[in-house]
């Protein structure tokens, strides 16, 4: 099996801990040698998943925890974010995401629900499992040849 380091965190499902996990992500990604731009992408993607986990999964309950696992590989970082709250209808969520169109009327604009769209735009690979609670598994590869982020938000995997 491919060798990797595993780091696990467990935080209360509260918005104030999203920033704590973001800082941890930044530290791990920095140690692995990710570029500044990629670290910023990771920070947003992980915060989105954390915000989903804290907001949706534990809507009416107090307490509850979110478990975060970081798989540190030679060529990539895998981040798993799991909650044990209620599951959601993934197909329905997927239908409601995507970029805005400039001809959309202002009243029709969505105010939320595009966290998942951003996760998919910023990470190289995203898997969501929805059997028991919600697990988001995201992967970002370390690139030897950096692509200028300003050119395109889609990173190249090699």
């Amino acid at each position, binding site marked *: 099996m491919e060798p990797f380091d595993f780091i696990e965190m467990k935080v209360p499902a509260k918005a104030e801990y999203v920033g704590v996990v973001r800082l941890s992500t930044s530290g791990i990604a920095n140690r692995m040698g990710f570029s500044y731009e990629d670290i910023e992408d990771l920070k947003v993607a992980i*915060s*989105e998943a*954390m915000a989903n986990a*804290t907001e949706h999964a534990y809507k009416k309950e107090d307490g509850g925890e979110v478990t975060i696992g970081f798989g540190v590989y030679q060529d990539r970082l895998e981040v798993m974010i799991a909650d044990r709250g209620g599951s959601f209808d993934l197909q329905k969520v997927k239908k409601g995401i995507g970029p805005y169109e400039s001809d959309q009327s202002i009243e029709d604009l969505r*105010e*939320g629900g595009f966290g998942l769209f951003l996760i998919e735009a*910023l990470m190289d690979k995203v898997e969501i499992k929805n059997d028991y609670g919600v697990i988001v598994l995201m992967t970002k590869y370390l690139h030897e040849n950096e692509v200028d982020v300003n050119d395109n938000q889609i990173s190249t995997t090699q």
Partner: protein
Amino acid sequence: MNLYVETKEDGNTQEVKLSGEIDAYTAPKLKEALLPLIEIKGTEVVVNMEDVSYMDSTGLGVFIGALKSSDANNSKLRLICLQDRVRRLFDITGLDGIINIDSSVRGGK
């Protein structure tokens, strides 16, 4: 990991200066500060984002809410001085074509 909001009134313009990070924890604070201003009819709310070092979709949600409110109240919303990383989220989501954003104000960049 906090957000500071400073507001200044100048005639018909409300300047809102933000500094810090906008995320799931701080977005409610931004919403609370921004919405009452945008509800003033005929006003222009200018949000200075120069010192916002981090923002995610929770922040985008607040600005979309403010934009809707401005539409209903005949007021205006403008974002200025965005850092490149923050600006990028507006670009990816297509919001740059919907919200009035002026990054060019920022130090000639």
